[in-house]
C-alpha cells in the first residue's frame, strides 16, 4: 500500500471529505444483503437451517412401485391362479417327479454305503435308470465268442472230425496253391552278357531319335491337314506332294535302325499316307457333292475371306430349299409314326423282354446280397491296409485223438485267438505287424 497522496486538511469540509467510511458502507451492504436473503445464516440456529422431512413423498414412491408391479399381460395370463386347478400335462410333471426321486435317493444311498459297505465301489446300475444315450454299436454279426465246430471237440465223432480236418487241410492247401499258382515274382537279377560302352551309346541314340521323328511326322501331317481345309482346290496337290516327299526322305534314315523298330515305323508311315488319301477323297466328294454342302463351304469361306466372291442365292432356290425341308420333316414324322405302330404290334414281346430283364436284375441283386452276407459272417469289412487273415483251425490230428482229457494236446495260443477275434469283429484294424524277439 502506497502512501496516500497528501490532501489539504484545512477547513471542516476538508476534514469530512478525507475521512474513510468504507467499513460503515460494508456493514450496511452486508446487512441489506442479509435482510434480503432472509437473515444471517451463521447466526441462525441449526433447527432453522435443517429439518427432518417427515412428509410422504408420494409421487416418487408411486413411481417405484409402479415400476415394480408392472406385469406383462402374457405373464399375468400365465401366472398361476390359486383358484383355478391346473390341467396336468405329462412332461414337466415327469421331470419334476424324477428330480424329487433322485434327491430322495441320494440321501439313503450314501447312508447305505457308509453302513453296509466299507468298499469303494458302488452300484453303477442303481434303481434310477440313466437316460440311455444312443451309442454306435459295432454292426458286426460275428459273436464275440465263437463256438467251435463239433469236430474241434477234444473227443469228436469221426464224421465231424473228418469234416473239420478236411476244412483245415483245405485252408492249408489254399495257401500252398496261392503261392504256386500266383504270378511268378519279378526276378531281381537277369542273366545275360554285359553291354559294351559303344552298344549302350547306340541304344541311347536310337531311342532318342525315334521319339523325335514320330513327333515330326505327326506335326507335318496335321499341318498338311490344316492347309487342305483352308483351300481345297488350289493348294491341295503341292501340299500333299511336299508331305509325301518329306516322308520319303525320312524312310532311308530310319532304315539305319534296328530291324524290329523298322517294321513299326513302316506301319506308321503307311497310316500317314492313308490319312492323306482320305483327305483327297473327302475333298473330292465335297467338290462333286450336293449343292447344300457346296454352299455351306462357300459361306464359311466367305466368312473367313471377305474378298472372295459369293454365289447369290436366288429366290427360286430358296423356295426349293424350303419345300425340301418341309418334305423331309413330313417324312421323319411318318417314319416315327410307323415305328410306334410297329412297337405297339410287338408290345407283348417288349413286355416279355422287360420282365426278363427285371428278373435277371433281381436274381443278380439277390445273389449279391446273399454273397455279401455270407462274407460278413466270416470276415470283417476291409478297414485298413491289410486284409483279415483267419487263424488256423484248432483241430486234433487223427493220431492225437486219445479220448483222454489228460493227454489232450491243447491250444496254447488263446491270446492270439482273442486278438484275431477282435480283428474279425472289426474292432481292431488288422495289421501285419510282426514283432521281433
Amino acid at each position, binding site marked *: 500500500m502506497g502512501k496516500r497522496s497528501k490532501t489539504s486538511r484545512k477547513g471542516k469540509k476538508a476534514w469530512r471529505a478525507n475521512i474513510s467510511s468504507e467499513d460503515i458502507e460494508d456493514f450496511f451492504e452486508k446487512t441489506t444483503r442479509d435482510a434480503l436473503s432472509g437473515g444471517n445464516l451463521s447466526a441462525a440456529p441449526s433447527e432453522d437451517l435443517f429439518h427432518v422431512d417427515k412428509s410422504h413423498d408420494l409421487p416418487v414412491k408411486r413411481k417405484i412401485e409402479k415400476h415394480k408391479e408392472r406385469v406383462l399381460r402374457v405373464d399375468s395370463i400365465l401366472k398361476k391362479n390359486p383358484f383355478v386347478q391346473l390341467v396336468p400335462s405329462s412332461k414337466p410333471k415327469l421331470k419334476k417327479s424324477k428330480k424329487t426321486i433322485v434327491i430322495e435317493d441320494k440321501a439313503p444311498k450314501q447312508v447305505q454305503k457308509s453302513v453296509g459297505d466299507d468298499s469303494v465301489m458302488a452300484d453303477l446300475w442303481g434303481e434310477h435308470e440313466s437316460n440311455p444315450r444312443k451309442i454306435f454299436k459295432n454292426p458286426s454279426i460275428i459273436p464275440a465268442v465263437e463256438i467251435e465246430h463239433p469236430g474241434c471237440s477234444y473227443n469228436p465223432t469221426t464224421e465231424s472230425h473228418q469234416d473239420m480236418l478236411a476244412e483245415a487241410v483245405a485252408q492249408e492247401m489254399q495257401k500252398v496253391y496261392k503261392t504256386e499258382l500266383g504270378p511268378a515274382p519279378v526276378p531281381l537279377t537277369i542273366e545275360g552278357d554285359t553291354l559294351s560302352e559303344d552298344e549302350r551309346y547306340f541304344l541311347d541314340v536310337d531311342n532318342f531319335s525315334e521319339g523325335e521323328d514320330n513327333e515330326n511326322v505327326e506335326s507335318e501331317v496335321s499341318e498338311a491337314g490344316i492347309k487342305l481345309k483352308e483351300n481345297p482346290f488350289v493348294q491341295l496337290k503341292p501340299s500333299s506332294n511336299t508331305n509325301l516327299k518329306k516322308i520319303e526322305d525320312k524312310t532311308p534314315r530310319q532304315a539305319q535302325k534296328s530291324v524290329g523298330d523298322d517294321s513299326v515305323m513302316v506301319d506308321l508311315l503307311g497310316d500317314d499316307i492313308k490319312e492323306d488319301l482320305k483327305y483327297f477323297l473327302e475333298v473330292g466328294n465335297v467338290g462333286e457333292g450336293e449343292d447344300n454342302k457346296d454352299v455351306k463351304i462357300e459361306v464359311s469361306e466367305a466368312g473367313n475371306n471377305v474378298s472372295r466372291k459369293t454365289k447369290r442365292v436366288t429366290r427360286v432356290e430358296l423356295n426349293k430349299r424350303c419345300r425340301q425341308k418341309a418334305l423331309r420333316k413330313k417324312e421323319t414324322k411318318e417314319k416315327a409314326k410307323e415305328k410306334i405302330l410297329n412297337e405297339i404290334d410287338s408290345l407283348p414281346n417288349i413286355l416279355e423282354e422287360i420282365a426278363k430283364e427285371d428278373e435277371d436284375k433281381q436274381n443278380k441283386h439277390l445273389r449279391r446280397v446273399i454273397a455279401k452276407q455270407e462274407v460278413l459272417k466270416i470276415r470283417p469289412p476291409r478297414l485298413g491296409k491289410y486284409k483279415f487273415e483267419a487263424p488256423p483251425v484248432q483241430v486234433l490230428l487223427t493220431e492225437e485223438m486219445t479220448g483222454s482229457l489228460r493227454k489232450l494236446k491243447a491250444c*496254447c495260443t488263446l491270446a492270439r485267438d482273442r486278438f484275431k477275434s477282435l480283428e474279425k469283429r472289426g474292432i481292431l484294424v488288422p495289421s501285419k505287424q510282426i514283432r521281433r524277439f
Partner: protein
Amino acid sequence: MPKHYRPTGKKKEGNAARYMTRSQALKHLQVNLNLFRRLCIVKGIFPREPKKKIKGNHHTYYHVKDIAFLMHEPLLEKFREIKTYQKKVKKAKAKKNEELARLLLTRQPTYKLDRLIRERYPTFIDALRDLDDCLTMVHLFAVLPASDRENLEVKRVHNCRRLTHEWQAYISRSHALRKVFVSVKGIYYQAEIEGQKITWLTPHAIQQVFTNDVDFGVLLTFLEFYETLLAFINFKLYHSLNVKYPPILDSRLEALAADLYALSRYIDASSRGMAVEPKVDASFSSQSNDREESELRLAQLQHQLPSSEPGALMHLVADNNKEVEEDEETRVCKSLFKDLKFFLSREVPRESLQLVITAFGGMVSWEGEGAPFKEDDESITHHIIDKPSAGHLYLSRVYVQPQWIYDCVNARIILPTEKYLVGRIPPPHLSPFVDNEAEGYVPDYAETIKRLQAAARNEVLPLPGVGKEDLEDPQNLLYAGVMSRAEEAEAAKNKKKMAAQEKQYHEELKMEINGSKDVVAPVVAEGEGEESVPDAMQIAQEDADMPKVLMSRKKRKLYDAMKISQSRKRSGVEIIEQRKKRLNDTQPSS
C-alpha cells in the same frame, strides 16, 4: 468335424464330410496314436467302412461324430495331465533328484473308468449282453504268466484270477450254468443270467504263450476296461444274493489255492444272514475297536464251523425256500447232481469240474489239504479219474472219466457210466451248441442220448409224486438210466411204428390228390414207402409255390435266400452221410 468348425473349402456333405482318416483324427484330437487307440478302446469307438473311401482303400476311417465324441471326453484331458506329470518325473530323474521323483510318483494322477462303463452300458442287461468277450479275456489273463516285457504285472494277473473266481462262485451258487463244451481250444461254458445267454471260453490247464503276432499293449487296454466292468458286475450280482462284495476269504484256503471253495463257503455263510450286519475288512481291523474285532472273529469261527462236519460244505442247495423266483430250467440244473458226492483225482482239471459239479447241485472234494472231505469217505458216489487204472478201488463208488460229468450236464440226465469207466475210450464228446434238428445230421451218440433222455423223463417224472426218499437215494437215480434199457427198446419200436404210420399218411394224401386214380396198396414193403414220400413232397411243394406268388417282393427275396441256404445245408449233410458210409465200408475191411 462339426458343421461350425468346417473351414472354407471343406466338403459339406457326403462321405468326404462324414468320415475322416485316422491320421486326420489324430491331428484333430492332438494326441498320439497310442493314446488314440486307448481312448477308442475304452470309449467303444470302432473304425468304419464308408461306402466311398475318399482317401483310398488303405486308410482307416472314423466317423466325424465319433471323433467329436472323443473330443469331449474328460478322460482325454486326464490322459494329457498324466502325460505332463510323467514328464515331470522324468525330468526329476534326469536331474538325479531321486527324492523328488519318488515324491512325485506317490502322487500320480489316476483315472477311473466307471463313468465310461455307465455310459456304454446304460442298464445292467446291456452290460450282461456284452460280457462274453470280457469274461474270456479275463479268464485268459488269469492263466498267463506275468511278464516284464509285455508289461503284464503279477498284480494284474492276480486280480484277474480273483475276478474269475468270484464270477465262477456266483455261477455255481446261482446254478446258472447251462452248457459246457470241451474243445481243443479250451472249455466253453454257457450260463444264463437274467435271460441273457453268456458264453465264455476258458483255457486248458497248460501254459499259455505269448505269440509275436499279437499286440499285447492293445489287449492290456481291453483288459483294463474289462477288469473294471467285471468287478462292477460281480458287485451287482453279489448284492443280488445279499452278499457283501469284495469278499473276505479264509486265508488258509486261499493259500492252498482253493479260492473257489473258499468263495462258495463265504457266500454260503454270508447269505445265511450274516452279510447284512456290518463287518470290517481285515485291513481295517487294526484300527477298529475291540467289539468289532470280536465280531470278526465270531464270523470267522462260523466260517470254520461247517468244515468240521464233512458233507455239509459244498451243499449249497440247503435254502430251497429262499429262491422262489427261479425258473424251471434252474430247478432242473440245481437238482441234477443232487445227493451225489464226487471226489476229484489229482490229474483232472479241478477248477472246471468244481464249477460244473457245484453249479449242478453236487458235492465235490479233491486230493490235497483243505478239501471238504477225504478220499476214504464212504459216502462218495463217484470218483473222477483220468488214468488208465486206479490204484486202490473202493467198491462203494464208481470210477469214471471227467467227460462223464460234462456229458451228463449237457444231456441233463445222469448217463450210464459203463462207457465212461476207467481205462476205456469214452464215447464222443458232442457239442451242446449244435442244434442237430436244424443241422439235419444227428450223430449216433446224440440219438442214444435222446433215447435215454426220453426214458429218463418217463422214469423220473413220477418221482416227485412218489416222495423224496427215492430221490435221496443216489444209487437209485444213478442207475435210472441203466434200468430203463427195456424201455429204450420199446421206444425204438414205437418210433418204427410211427414212421410206418407216417408213410401211410403220405400215401393217403397222394391218393387224395390224384383223385383216387388208382387204388393204393397198403404199406407193406419199405421200398414202396420210400418212393411214395417224394411224390407227396413234390405235390406239397407245388402247393407251397402258391403263396409265394402272393408274397411281397421283399418277402419273396428273403424266402429265396432261405431256400438257397437250406439247400446248401442239405448238400453238406449229404456229404457227411456219404463220408460216413464210406468210413463204415472201409473200416470193417481194413
